Protein backbone atom coordinates (compact mmCIF):
# COMPACT_ATOMS: atom_id res chain seq x y z
CA UNK A 1 0.00 0.00 0.00
CA UNK A 2 2.68 2.46 1.00
CA UNK A 3 4.61 1.45 -2.12
CA UNK A 4 2.02 2.73 -4.51
CA UNK A 5 1.14 5.64 -2.37
CA UNK A 6 4.41 7.48 -2.30
CA UNK A 7 5.01 8.17 -5.98
CA UNK A 8 1.68 9.93 -6.07
CA UNK A 9 2.76 12.11 -3.23
CA UNK A 10 6.02 12.89 -5.01
CA UNK A 11 4.31 13.99 -8.20
CA UNK A 12 1.64 15.95 -6.58
CA UNK A 13 2.47 19.57 -6.06
CA UNK A 14 -1.02 20.91 -6.63
CA UNK A 15 -2.62 19.05 -3.77
CA UNK A 16 -0.37 20.68 -1.22
CA UNK A 17 -2.41 23.24 0.69
CA UNK A 18 -0.44 26.37 0.30
CA UNK A 19 2.64 24.36 -0.38
CA UNK A 20 5.31 26.83 0.51
CA UNK A 21 3.34 29.18 2.70
CA UNK A 22 1.80 26.93 5.36
CA UNK A 23 5.10 25.41 6.37
CA UNK A 24 8.59 26.83 5.98
CA UNK A 25 10.24 25.59 2.80
CA UNK A 26 12.27 23.00 4.59
CA UNK A 27 9.04 21.63 6.00
CA UNK A 28 7.00 21.68 2.83
CA UNK A 29 6.44 18.51 0.98
CA UNK A 30 8.25 19.75 -2.08
CA UNK A 31 11.29 20.71 -0.05
CA UNK A 32 11.09 17.53 1.89
CA UNK A 33 10.88 15.37 -1.17
CA UNK A 34 13.85 17.16 -2.69
CA UNK A 35 15.94 16.42 0.36
CA UNK A 36 14.86 12.89 0.98
CA UNK A 37 15.30 11.70 -2.56
CA UNK A 38 14.57 8.01 -2.86
CA UNK A 39 14.65 6.86 0.72
CA UNK A 40 12.49 3.82 1.34
CA UNK A 41 8.88 4.12 2.33
CA UNK A 42 9.43 2.86 5.85
CA UNK A 43 12.07 5.37 6.67
CA UNK A 44 9.83 8.09 5.33
CA UNK A 45 7.17 7.10 7.78
CA UNK A 46 9.79 6.99 10.49
CA UNK A 47 10.75 10.53 9.66
CA UNK A 48 7.14 11.57 9.91
CA UNK A 49 6.91 10.06 13.35
CA UNK A 50 10.02 11.94 14.42
CA UNK A 51 8.62 15.18 13.14
CA UNK A 52 5.65 14.90 15.48
CA UNK A 53 8.02 15.65 18.34
CA UNK A 54 8.56 19.21 17.24
CA UNK A 55 6.70 22.06 18.90
CA UNK A 56 4.80 23.39 15.95
CA UNK A 57 1.34 21.80 16.21
CA UNK A 58 0.30 22.96 12.81
CA UNK A 59 3.37 21.62 11.11
CA UNK A 60 2.91 18.29 12.87
CA UNK A 61 -0.59 17.77 11.69
CA UNK A 62 0.38 18.85 8.21
CA UNK A 63 3.20 16.35 8.24
CA UNK A 64 1.16 13.46 9.42
CA UNK A 65 -1.46 14.27 6.83
CA UNK A 66 1.01 13.83 4.02
CA UNK A 67 1.64 10.30 5.09
CA UNK A 68 -1.86 9.16 5.82
CA UNK A 69 -3.44 6.54 3.60
CA UNK A 70 -6.50 6.69 1.42
CA UNK A 71 -9.39 7.22 3.85
CA UNK A 72 -11.36 4.34 2.41
CA UNK A 73 -8.53 1.92 3.15
CA UNK A 74 -7.70 3.18 6.62
CA UNK A 75 -8.38 1.11 9.71
CA UNK A 76 -10.67 2.46 12.42
CA UNK A 77 -7.63 3.54 14.47
CA UNK A 78 -6.03 5.27 11.53
CA UNK A 79 -9.27 7.11 10.81
CA UNK A 80 -9.57 8.18 14.43
CA UNK A 81 -6.00 9.46 14.38
CA UNK A 82 -6.51 11.32 11.10
CA UNK A 83 -9.67 12.94 12.39
CA UNK A 84 -8.08 13.95 15.69
CA UNK A 85 -5.16 15.51 13.80
CA UNK A 86 -7.51 17.53 11.65
CA UNK A 87 -9.58 18.66 14.61
CA UNK A 88 -6.45 20.02 16.25
CA UNK A 89 -5.30 21.81 13.13
CA UNK A 90 -8.68 23.30 12.18
CA UNK A 91 -9.42 24.40 15.74
CA UNK A 92 -6.14 26.29 15.84
CA UNK A 93 -6.64 27.71 12.37
CA UNK A 94 -10.23 28.91 12.83
CA UNK A 95 -10.07 29.88 16.50
CA UNK A 96 -12.99 27.71 17.57
CA UNK A 97 -13.67 24.15 18.55
CA UNK A 98 -13.94 22.32 15.26
CA UNK A 99 -15.20 18.74 15.15
CA UNK A 100 -14.38 16.37 12.31
CA UNK A 101 -16.88 13.57 12.24
CA UNK A 102 -16.21 10.16 10.71
CA UNK A 103 -19.63 8.55 11.14
CA UNK A 104 -19.88 5.74 8.59
CA UNK A 105 -22.90 4.97 6.42
CA UNK A 106 -25.86 3.46 8.21
CA UNK A 107 -27.06 0.02 7.12
CA UNK A 108 -30.35 -0.02 5.25
CA UNK A 109 -30.07 3.60 4.15
CA UNK A 110 -29.77 4.76 0.54
CA UNK A 111 -30.08 8.51 0.23
CA UNK A 112 -32.30 9.98 -2.45
CA UNK A 113 -33.41 13.45 -3.41
CA UNK A 114 -36.41 14.84 -5.26
CA UNK A 115 -36.89 18.38 -6.54
CA UNK A 116 -40.18 19.87 -7.67
CA UNK A 117 -39.25 21.74 -10.81
CA UNK A 118 -42.69 23.32 -10.99
CA UNK A 119 -42.40 24.90 -7.56
CA UNK A 120 -38.82 26.18 -7.75
CA UNK A 121 -38.84 29.98 -7.97
CA UNK A 122 -35.13 30.46 -8.65
CA UNK A 123 -34.38 32.40 -5.45
CA UNK A 124 -30.94 30.73 -5.08
CA UNK A 125 -31.32 30.33 -1.33
CA UNK A 126 -30.31 26.68 -1.70
CA UNK A 127 -27.01 27.68 -3.27
CA UNK A 128 -26.27 30.14 -0.45
CA UNK A 129 -27.41 27.81 2.34
CA UNK A 130 -25.07 25.23 0.89
CA UNK A 131 -22.16 27.65 1.23
CA UNK A 132 -23.14 28.51 4.83
CA UNK A 133 -23.12 24.83 5.69
CA UNK A 134 -20.31 23.39 3.65
CA UNK A 135 -17.40 25.79 4.17
CA UNK A 136 -16.87 26.63 0.52
CA UNK A 137 -14.42 29.31 -0.46
CA UNK A 138 -15.79 32.86 -0.47
CA UNK A 139 -15.10 36.17 -2.18
CA UNK A 140 -13.09 36.18 -5.40
CA UNK A 141 -12.46 32.47 -4.98
CA UNK A 142 -16.19 31.82 -4.57
CA UNK A 143 -17.33 28.24 -5.01
CA UNK A 144 -20.96 27.15 -5.08
CA UNK A 145 -22.02 23.54 -5.42
CA UNK A 146 -25.57 24.29 -6.52
CA UNK A 147 -26.32 26.17 -9.72
CA UNK A 148 -29.81 27.36 -10.52
CA UNK A 149 -30.49 27.61 -14.23
CA UNK A 150 -33.21 29.84 -15.51
CA UNK A 151 -34.98 28.38 -18.50
CA UNK A 152 -37.57 29.93 -20.70
CA UNK A 153 -40.89 28.21 -20.42
CA UNK A 154 -41.22 25.92 -23.38
CA UNK A 155 -37.53 25.07 -23.42
CA UNK A 156 -38.26 21.92 -21.60
CA UNK A 157 -41.21 19.84 -22.54
CA UNK A 158 -41.34 16.23 -21.48
CA UNK A 159 -43.87 15.41 -24.19
CA UNK A 160 -41.31 16.46 -26.81
CA UNK A 161 -38.86 13.87 -25.56
CA UNK A 162 -39.53 11.42 -28.39
CA UNK A 163 -39.53 14.11 -31.12
CA UNK A 164 -36.78 14.84 -33.62
CA UNK A 165 -33.78 17.10 -33.43
CA UNK A 166 -34.11 20.17 -31.19
CA UNK A 167 -35.51 23.04 -33.21
CA UNK A 168 -34.10 25.60 -30.83
CA UNK A 169 -30.61 26.66 -29.83
CA UNK A 170 -28.89 24.99 -26.94
CA UNK A 171 -27.41 21.74 -25.91
CA UNK A 172 -29.20 18.59 -26.76
CA UNK A 173 -29.92 16.55 -23.69
CA UNK A 174 -31.90 13.52 -24.71
CA UNK A 175 -31.31 10.78 -27.28
CA UNK A 176 -28.03 10.20 -29.03
CA UNK A 177 -26.23 11.40 -32.16
CA UNK A 178 -28.64 9.55 -34.44
CA UNK A 179 -31.89 10.21 -32.69
CA UNK A 180 -32.04 13.31 -30.58
CA UNK A 181 -34.76 13.78 -28.04
CA UNK A 182 -35.61 17.36 -28.80
CA UNK A 183 -34.86 18.64 -25.36
CA UNK A 184 -32.60 21.57 -24.90
CA UNK A 185 -30.76 22.31 -21.75
CA UNK A 186 -29.55 25.83 -21.93
CA UNK A 187 -30.20 28.11 -19.09
CA UNK A 188 -29.09 31.41 -17.71
CA UNK A 189 -26.85 31.18 -14.68
CA UNK A 190 -26.53 34.88 -13.99
CA UNK A 191 -30.12 36.12 -14.10
CA UNK A 192 -30.69 39.06 -11.77
CA UNK A 193 -34.27 40.30 -11.83
CA UNK A 194 -35.72 42.34 -8.97
CA UNK A 195 -38.00 39.50 -7.95
CA UNK A 196 -38.40 35.83 -8.75
CA UNK A 197 -40.08 33.90 -10.21
CA UNK A 198 -40.17 35.87 -13.43
CA UNK A 199 -43.02 35.45 -15.81
CA UNK A 200 -42.48 32.78 -18.47
CA UNK A 201 -39.47 31.32 -16.74
CA UNK A 202 -38.84 28.16 -14.85
CA UNK A 203 -35.81 27.23 -12.86
CA UNK A 204 -33.70 24.13 -12.68
CA UNK A 205 -31.25 23.75 -9.81
CA UNK A 206 -28.39 21.38 -10.55
CA UNK A 207 -26.03 19.76 -8.10
CA UNK A 208 -24.31 16.41 -7.65
CA UNK A 209 -26.79 13.68 -8.54
CA UNK A 210 -25.02 11.02 -6.40
CA UNK A 211 -25.15 8.60 -9.34
CA UNK A 212 -25.38 4.90 -8.70
CA UNK A 213 -22.94 4.48 -11.60
CA UNK A 214 -20.84 7.61 -11.22
CA UNK A 215 -18.56 8.34 -14.20
CA UNK A 216 -16.40 10.54 -11.96
CA UNK A 217 -15.55 7.55 -9.82
CA UNK A 218 -14.63 5.49 -12.87
CA UNK A 219 -12.09 8.00 -14.12
CA UNK A 220 -10.38 8.95 -10.87
CA UNK A 221 -6.80 7.68 -11.25
CA UNK A 222 -6.11 7.63 -7.51
CA UNK A 223 -9.52 6.38 -6.40
CA UNK A 224 -9.96 9.26 -4.05
CA UNK A 225 -13.55 9.77 -5.11
CA UNK A 226 -15.83 6.83 -4.48
CA UNK A 227 -19.35 5.77 -3.68
CA UNK A 228 -20.22 5.21 -0.04
CA UNK A 229 -22.61 2.42 1.02
CA UNK A 230 -25.42 4.93 1.63
CA UNK A 231 -25.14 6.00 -1.97
CA UNK A 232 -23.32 9.32 -1.75
CA UNK A 233 -20.21 9.95 -3.80
CA UNK A 234 -17.44 11.47 -1.71
CA UNK A 235 -13.93 12.85 -2.11
CA UNK A 236 -11.01 12.22 0.24
CA UNK A 237 -9.48 15.66 -0.25
CA UNK A 238 -6.15 14.58 1.17
CA UNK A 239 -5.70 11.99 -1.49
CA UNK A 240 -6.92 14.14 -4.40
CA UNK A 241 -4.14 15.02 -6.83
CA UNK A 242 -6.12 17.73 -8.59
CA UNK A 243 -6.04 16.14 -12.04
CA UNK A 244 -9.68 17.15 -12.62
CA UNK A 245 -10.52 14.06 -14.67
CA UNK A 246 -13.70 13.73 -12.62
CA UNK A 247 -14.77 17.24 -13.55
CA UNK A 248 -14.53 16.31 -17.19
CA UNK A 249 -16.35 13.03 -16.69
CA UNK A 250 -19.34 14.45 -14.80
CA UNK A 251 -22.30 14.95 -17.14
CA UNK A 252 -23.97 17.29 -14.65
CA UNK A 253 -21.26 19.84 -14.09
CA UNK A 254 -21.43 19.16 -10.38
CA UNK A 255 -17.76 19.30 -9.39
CA UNK A 256 -15.70 22.33 -8.50
CA UNK A 257 -11.96 22.87 -8.33
CA UNK A 258 -10.02 25.00 -5.86
CA UNK A 259 -7.85 26.92 -8.29
CA UNK A 260 -6.57 29.15 -5.55
CA UNK A 261 -6.12 29.01 -1.82
CA UNK A 262 -9.69 28.75 -0.47
CA UNK A 263 -10.91 31.85 1.35
CA UNK A 264 -12.95 30.92 4.38
CA UNK A 265 -13.22 33.70 6.99
CA UNK A 266 -13.03 32.44 10.58
CA UNK A 267 -16.42 33.85 11.52
CA UNK A 268 -18.14 32.09 8.61
CA UNK A 269 -16.57 28.71 9.24
CA UNK A 270 -19.06 26.01 10.20
CA UNK A 271 -17.28 24.04 12.94
CA UNK A 272 -19.41 20.91 12.63
CA UNK A 273 -17.67 19.01 9.87
CA UNK A 274 -17.29 15.51 8.45
CA UNK A 275 -14.06 14.13 7.04
CA UNK A 276 -15.78 13.29 3.75
CA UNK A 277 -17.91 16.40 3.71
CA UNK A 278 -17.58 20.02 4.70
CA UNK A 279 -14.19 20.12 6.41
CA UNK A 280 -12.07 22.95 5.00
CA UNK A 281 -10.45 22.12 1.68
CA UNK A 282 -7.07 23.08 0.34
CA UNK A 283 -5.86 24.54 -2.90
CA UNK A 284 -5.75 22.10 -5.78
CA UNK A 285 -8.50 19.69 -4.77
CA UNK A 286 -11.92 18.92 -6.18
CA UNK A 287 -15.09 19.23 -4.13
CA UNK A 288 -18.82 18.78 -4.60
CA UNK A 289 -22.18 18.20 -2.92
CA UNK A 290 -22.36 15.23 -0.54
CA UNK A 291 -26.04 15.65 0.43
CA UNK A 292 -24.50 17.30 3.54
CA UNK A 293 -22.98 14.06 4.82
CA UNK A 294 -22.09 15.77 8.13
CA UNK A 295 -25.79 16.43 8.72
CA UNK A 296 -27.53 13.51 7.06
CA UNK A 297 -25.45 10.85 8.81
CA UNK A 298 -26.54 12.48 12.07
CA UNK A 299 -30.18 12.39 11.04
CA UNK A 300 -30.62 15.98 9.90
CA UNK A 301 -31.98 17.12 6.52
CA UNK A 302 -29.47 18.63 4.08
CA UNK A 303 -29.20 22.43 4.35
CA UNK A 304 -30.70 23.05 0.90
CA UNK A 305 -33.81 21.01 1.74
CA UNK A 306 -34.40 23.03 4.88
CA UNK A 307 -33.88 26.43 3.32
CA UNK A 308 -36.07 26.10 0.24
CA UNK A 309 -38.86 28.63 0.91
CA UNK A 310 -41.34 26.91 -1.39
CA UNK A 311 -40.67 23.39 -0.13
CA UNK A 312 -39.57 22.13 -3.54
CA UNK A 313 -36.81 19.93 -2.13
CA UNK A 314 -37.48 16.49 -0.64
CA UNK A 315 -34.97 14.14 0.86
CA UNK A 316 -34.91 10.77 2.54
CA UNK A 317 -34.15 7.08 2.52
CA UNK A 318 -34.97 5.41 -0.80
CA UNK A 319 -35.25 2.08 1.00
CA UNK A 320 -38.03 3.37 3.28
CA UNK A 321 -41.44 3.38 1.56
CA UNK A 322 -42.70 5.97 4.08
CA UNK A 323 -39.96 8.48 3.30
CA UNK A 324 -40.79 11.75 1.58
CA UNK A 325 -38.76 10.86 -1.54
CA UNK A 326 -40.45 7.51 -1.89
CA UNK A 327 -43.86 9.18 -1.62
CA UNK A 328 -42.86 11.56 -4.39
CA UNK A 329 -41.61 8.71 -6.57
CA UNK A 330 -44.85 6.84 -5.97
CA UNK A 331 -47.25 9.68 -6.72
CA UNK A 332 -45.61 12.25 -9.03
CA UNK A 333 -44.34 12.53 -12.58
CA UNK A 334 -40.63 12.01 -12.16
CA UNK A 335 -37.63 12.30 -14.45
CA UNK A 336 -33.88 12.18 -14.11
CA UNK A 337 -31.50 14.51 -15.85
CA UNK A 338 -29.68 12.95 -18.80
CA UNK A 339 -31.09 9.55 -17.98
CA UNK A 340 -29.65 8.27 -21.25
CA UNK A 341 -26.14 8.64 -19.83
CA UNK A 342 -26.85 5.55 -17.72
CA UNK A 343 -25.47 7.15 -14.61
CA UNK A 344 -28.56 6.28 -12.55
CA UNK A 345 -28.78 9.48 -10.53
CA UNK A 346 -30.43 9.37 -7.11
CA UNK A 347 -31.53 12.95 -7.64
CA UNK A 348 -34.99 13.10 -9.17
CA UNK A 349 -36.92 16.00 -10.65
CA UNK A 350 -40.68 15.92 -10.40
CA UNK A 351 -43.83 17.78 -11.31
CA UNK A 352 -47.13 18.03 -9.45
Amino acid at each position, binding site marked *: MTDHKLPIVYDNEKAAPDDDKAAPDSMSRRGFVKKVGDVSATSLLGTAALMTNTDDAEANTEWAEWFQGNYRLMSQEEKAAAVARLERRYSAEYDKKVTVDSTPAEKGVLFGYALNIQKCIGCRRCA*KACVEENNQSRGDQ*EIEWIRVLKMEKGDFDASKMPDGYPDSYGIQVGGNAYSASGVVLEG*EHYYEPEKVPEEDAFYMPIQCMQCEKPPCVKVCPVRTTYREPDGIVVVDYNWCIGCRMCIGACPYWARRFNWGEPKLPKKDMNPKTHYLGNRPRMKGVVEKCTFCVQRTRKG*RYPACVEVCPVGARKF*GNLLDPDSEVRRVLATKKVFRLKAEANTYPKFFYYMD
Partner: protein
Amino acid sequence: MQTNKQVLTNMIVKESKIVAIFCLLILSLSSAAFAEDKVCFEAREGASSVTQKDIGEELKNVRCSDTTDGVLWWGDPFDGTQPMGDMPIEADYTHGEAVVKPRTTQLGLYPVCGLACHNGKFPPPVAADAPPRKLTMHTDLVPDALNLQHGKGGIWCLDCHDAKTRNKFVDNAGNLVDFNEPQKMCGKCHGQVYRAWRDGIHGKRIGEWASTGKKRWFVCTECHNPHDVQQGERKSGFAQLVPEPAPLLPKGMDNADHERHGSGH
Protein backbone atom coordinates in the same frame (compact mmCIF):
# COMPACT_ATOMS: atom_id res chain seq x y z
CA MET B 1 -42.23 51.48 20.52
CA GLN B 2 -41.53 55.13 21.20
CA THR B 3 -45.08 55.97 22.22
CA ASN B 4 -45.33 52.93 24.45
CA LYS B 5 -42.20 54.02 26.18
CA GLN B 6 -43.60 57.50 26.80
CA VAL B 7 -46.91 56.23 28.10
CA LEU B 8 -45.14 53.88 30.42
CA THR B 9 -42.76 56.49 31.74
CA ASN B 10 -45.59 59.00 32.25
CA MET B 11 -47.42 56.45 34.34
CA ILE B 12 -44.36 55.71 36.36
CA VAL B 13 -43.54 59.38 36.93
CA LYS B 14 -46.74 59.64 38.92
CA GLU B 15 -45.51 56.86 41.18
CA SER B 16 -41.94 57.81 41.77
CA LYS B 17 -39.24 59.63 39.90
CA ILE B 18 -36.46 57.26 40.87
CA VAL B 19 -38.31 54.24 39.61
CA ALA B 20 -39.02 56.16 36.43
CA ILE B 21 -35.38 56.87 35.77
CA PHE B 22 -34.54 53.26 36.48
CA CYS B 23 -37.21 52.01 34.10
CA LEU B 24 -36.15 54.45 31.44
CA LEU B 25 -32.63 53.13 31.71
CA ILE B 26 -33.79 49.55 31.29
CA LEU B 27 -36.04 50.48 28.42
CA SER B 28 -33.32 52.31 26.56
CA LEU B 29 -30.94 49.43 27.20
CA SER B 30 -33.41 46.92 25.85
CA SER B 31 -34.18 49.03 22.81
CA ALA B 32 -30.46 49.35 22.16
CA ALA B 33 -30.26 45.57 22.18
CA PHE B 34 -33.21 45.54 19.81
CA ALA B 35 -31.44 47.72 17.31
CA GLU B 36 -28.60 45.24 16.99
CA ASP B 37 -30.74 42.13 16.63
CA LYS B 38 -31.15 41.13 13.03
CA VAL B 39 -34.66 40.23 12.01
CA CYS B 40 -34.96 37.81 9.11
CA PHE B 41 -37.85 36.01 7.50
CA GLU B 42 -38.31 32.32 6.83
CA ALA B 43 -40.67 31.78 3.89
CA ARG B 44 -43.35 34.48 3.85
CA GLU B 45 -41.88 37.95 3.88
CA GLY B 46 -43.30 40.09 6.67
CA ALA B 47 -45.21 37.20 8.23
CA SER B 48 -42.59 34.63 9.22
CA SER B 49 -40.08 36.79 11.05
CA VAL B 50 -37.41 35.43 13.31
CA THR B 51 -34.92 37.40 15.37
CA GLN B 52 -31.36 36.23 15.25
CA LYS B 53 -29.92 35.26 18.65
CA ASP B 54 -27.21 33.13 20.20
CA ILE B 55 -28.31 29.67 21.27
CA GLY B 56 -24.96 28.25 22.20
CA GLU B 57 -21.25 28.68 21.82
CA GLU B 58 -20.59 29.89 18.29
CA LEU B 59 -24.16 28.95 17.39
CA LYS B 60 -26.98 31.19 16.23
CA ASN B 61 -30.62 30.13 15.94
CA VAL B 62 -30.55 31.26 12.31
CA ARG B 63 -28.08 32.65 9.83
CA CYS B 64 -29.52 35.10 7.33
CA SER B 65 -28.69 36.51 3.96
CA ASP B 66 -27.09 39.96 4.03
CA THR B 67 -28.73 40.88 0.75
CA THR B 68 -32.30 39.63 1.18
CA ASP B 69 -32.72 39.03 4.95
CA GLY B 70 -33.97 35.57 4.11
CA VAL B 71 -33.10 32.81 6.60
CA LEU B 72 -30.35 30.66 5.08
CA TRP B 73 -29.56 28.23 7.85
CA TRP B 74 -31.08 26.98 11.10
CA GLY B 75 -28.76 26.35 14.02
CA ASP B 76 -31.64 24.65 15.82
CA PRO B 77 -34.57 23.64 13.62
CA PHE B 78 -36.85 23.33 16.66
CA ASP B 79 -36.11 26.70 18.23
CA GLY B 80 -39.34 28.45 19.22
CA THR B 81 -41.62 25.54 18.33
CA GLN B 82 -44.44 23.76 20.13
CA PRO B 83 -46.14 20.37 19.56
CA MET B 84 -48.32 20.38 16.45
CA GLY B 85 -51.38 18.73 17.93
CA ASP B 86 -53.51 16.06 16.37
CA MET B 87 -54.26 15.61 12.73
CA PRO B 88 -57.95 15.97 12.06
CA ILE B 89 -58.00 12.99 9.71
CA GLU B 90 -56.28 9.86 10.93
CA ALA B 91 -54.24 8.39 8.12
CA ASP B 92 -50.94 7.04 7.08
CA TYR B 93 -48.62 9.96 7.64
CA THR B 94 -45.26 10.12 9.31
CA HIS B 95 -45.33 9.11 12.92
CA GLY B 96 -42.37 11.01 14.23
CA GLU B 97 -42.66 13.89 16.63
CA ALA B 98 -44.21 16.91 14.88
CA VAL B 99 -43.72 20.50 16.00
CA VAL B 100 -44.77 23.86 14.57
CA LYS B 101 -43.99 27.50 15.19
CA PRO B 102 -47.00 29.30 16.65
CA ARG B 103 -48.59 31.74 14.20
CA THR B 104 -50.09 33.98 16.88
CA THR B 105 -46.70 35.52 17.69
CA GLN B 106 -46.56 36.82 14.11
CA LEU B 107 -49.98 38.47 14.19
CA GLY B 108 -50.31 42.06 15.31
CA LEU B 109 -54.06 42.00 15.92
CA TYR B 110 -54.35 38.63 17.61
CA PRO B 111 -53.76 39.97 21.15
CA VAL B 112 -56.76 42.32 20.92
CA CYS B 113 -59.00 40.08 18.81
CA GLY B 114 -61.86 38.76 20.93
CA LEU B 115 -60.98 41.15 23.77
CA ALA B 116 -60.98 44.79 22.70
CA CYS B 117 -62.51 43.99 19.34
CA HIS B 118 -65.01 41.37 18.24
CA ASN B 119 -65.81 40.76 21.89
CA GLY B 120 -69.50 40.21 21.25
CA LYS B 121 -70.39 43.87 21.78
CA PHE B 122 -67.95 45.88 19.75
CA PRO B 123 -68.21 46.09 16.81
CA PRO B 124 -71.79 44.79 16.59
CA PRO B 125 -71.63 41.07 15.70
CA VAL B 126 -72.80 39.88 12.28
CA ALA B 127 -74.59 36.69 11.31
CA ALA B 128 -72.42 33.85 10.00
CA ASP B 129 -74.27 33.98 6.69
CA ALA B 130 -74.11 37.77 6.33
CA PRO B 131 -73.44 38.64 2.69
CA PRO B 132 -70.09 40.12 1.62
CA ARG B 133 -69.92 43.86 2.10
CA LYS B 134 -67.44 46.66 1.71
CA LEU B 135 -65.24 46.97 4.80
CA THR B 136 -63.63 50.05 6.22
CA MET B 137 -61.43 48.13 8.63
CA HIS B 138 -58.46 45.86 7.83
CA THR B 139 -57.84 47.52 4.50
CA ASP B 140 -54.13 46.97 5.09
CA LEU B 141 -54.77 43.21 4.98
CA VAL B 142 -57.60 43.17 2.48
CA PRO B 143 -57.53 46.36 0.39
CA ASP B 144 -60.80 45.57 -1.35
CA ALA B 145 -63.01 43.17 0.60
CA LEU B 146 -65.39 42.80 -2.33
CA ASN B 147 -62.48 41.66 -4.47
CA LEU B 148 -60.88 39.25 -2.01
CA GLN B 149 -57.75 37.78 -3.61
CA HIS B 150 -58.68 34.26 -2.62
CA GLY B 151 -61.25 31.93 -4.10
CA LYS B 152 -61.93 33.96 -7.23
CA GLY B 153 -64.94 35.73 -5.80
CA GLY B 154 -66.35 32.55 -4.30
CA ILE B 155 -65.37 32.89 -0.66
CA TRP B 156 -65.72 35.42 2.14
CA CYS B 157 -64.13 36.31 5.49
CA LEU B 158 -66.57 34.16 7.43
CA ASP B 159 -65.79 31.04 5.40
CA CYS B 160 -62.54 30.99 7.35
CA HIS B 161 -63.03 33.18 10.41
CA ASP B 162 -65.67 32.18 12.92
CA ALA B 163 -68.47 34.74 13.01
CA LYS B 164 -68.77 34.80 16.81
CA THR B 165 -65.36 33.78 18.11
CA ARG B 166 -63.18 35.85 15.88
CA ASN B 167 -59.88 34.67 17.31
CA LYS B 168 -60.67 31.21 15.91
CA PHE B 169 -61.28 29.77 12.48
CA VAL B 170 -64.16 27.49 11.72
CA ASP B 171 -64.09 24.14 9.91
CA ASN B 172 -66.85 22.48 7.87
CA ALA B 173 -68.39 20.83 10.90
CA GLY B 174 -68.59 24.16 12.73
CA ASN B 175 -65.72 23.30 15.08
CA LEU B 176 -63.45 26.12 16.16
CA VAL B 177 -59.87 25.91 14.90
CA ASP B 178 -56.93 27.61 16.56
CA PHE B 179 -54.87 30.20 14.64
CA ASN B 180 -51.85 27.98 15.22
CA GLU B 181 -53.45 25.12 13.29
CA PRO B 182 -54.60 26.81 10.07
CA GLN B 183 -54.22 23.51 8.17
CA LYS B 184 -57.38 22.21 9.84
CA MET B 185 -59.30 25.12 8.36
CA CYS B 186 -57.59 25.35 4.94
CA GLY B 187 -58.02 21.60 4.59
CA LYS B 188 -61.77 21.93 4.44
CA CYS B 189 -61.57 23.37 0.93
CA HIS B 190 -58.14 22.10 -0.17
CA GLY B 191 -58.41 18.43 0.69
CA GLN B 192 -55.97 17.24 -1.90
CA VAL B 193 -53.25 19.73 -1.02
CA TYR B 194 -53.90 19.08 2.63
CA ARG B 195 -53.32 15.35 2.15
CA ALA B 196 -50.13 16.01 0.19
CA TRP B 197 -48.99 18.34 2.97
CA ARG B 198 -49.67 15.65 5.57
CA ASP B 199 -47.59 13.21 3.52
CA GLY B 200 -44.72 15.68 3.38
CA ILE B 201 -45.01 16.36 -0.35
CA HIS B 202 -46.65 19.80 -0.28
CA GLY B 203 -45.00 22.41 1.93
CA LYS B 204 -41.89 21.63 3.89
CA ARG B 205 -40.41 20.24 7.05
CA ILE B 206 -37.07 20.78 8.68
CA GLY B 207 -35.26 18.75 11.30
CA GLU B 208 -34.73 15.00 10.96
CA TRP B 209 -35.15 13.28 7.58
CA ALA B 210 -36.15 9.82 8.86
CA SER B 211 -39.86 9.14 8.46
CA THR B 212 -39.96 8.50 12.20
CA GLY B 213 -37.79 11.52 13.03
CA LYS B 214 -38.70 14.75 14.77
CA LYS B 215 -39.70 17.46 12.31
CA ARG B 216 -40.82 21.03 12.34
CA TRP B 217 -43.72 21.31 9.89
CA PHE B 218 -44.33 24.61 8.17
CA VAL B 219 -48.03 25.42 8.38
CA CYS B 220 -50.00 26.79 5.40
CA THR B 221 -49.86 30.43 6.49
CA GLU B 222 -46.09 30.38 6.85
CA CYS B 223 -46.00 30.29 3.04
CA HIS B 224 -49.38 31.55 1.84
CA ASN B 225 -51.02 34.85 2.62
CA PRO B 226 -54.62 33.73 3.14
CA HIS B 227 -55.93 37.14 2.09
CA ASP B 228 -53.92 37.27 -1.10
CA VAL B 229 -53.24 33.90 -2.70
CA GLN B 230 -54.15 35.19 -6.13
CA GLN B 231 -51.81 38.16 -6.28
CA GLY B 232 -53.88 39.87 -8.94
CA GLU B 233 -52.42 39.27 -12.39
CA ARG B 234 -49.87 36.78 -11.10
CA LYS B 235 -52.48 34.25 -10.04
CA SER B 236 -50.00 32.55 -7.76
CA GLY B 237 -50.25 31.38 -4.18
CA PHE B 238 -46.67 32.26 -3.32
CA ALA B 239 -45.45 35.86 -3.29
CA GLN B 240 -42.38 36.77 -5.32
CA LEU B 241 -39.05 37.09 -3.49
CA VAL B 242 -35.85 39.01 -4.07
CA PRO B 243 -33.33 36.44 -5.33
CA GLU B 244 -29.92 35.92 -3.79
CA PRO B 245 -27.05 37.39 -5.82
CA ALA B 246 -25.87 35.61 -8.97
CA PRO B 247 -22.78 33.42 -8.77
CA LEU B 248 -19.34 34.80 -9.54
CA LEU B 249 -18.66 35.20 -13.25
CA PRO B 250 -15.88 33.02 -14.66
CA LYS B 251 -12.47 34.69 -14.54
CA GLY B 252 -11.92 37.09 -17.41
CA MET B 253 -15.61 37.60 -18.09
CA ASP B 254 -17.14 40.89 -17.03
CA ASN B 255 -20.78 40.38 -17.94
CA ALA B 256 -23.19 37.57 -18.70
CA ASP B 257 -24.46 38.91 -22.02
CA HIS B 258 -23.50 35.69 -23.74
CA GLU B 259 -26.33 33.87 -22.04
CA ARG B 260 -29.07 36.46 -22.28
CA HIS B 261 -31.64 35.05 -24.61
CA GLY B 262 -32.61 37.29 -27.48
CA SER B 263 -29.36 39.25 -27.47
CA GLY B 264 -26.80 36.62 -28.39
CA HIS B 265 -28.95 34.37 -30.50
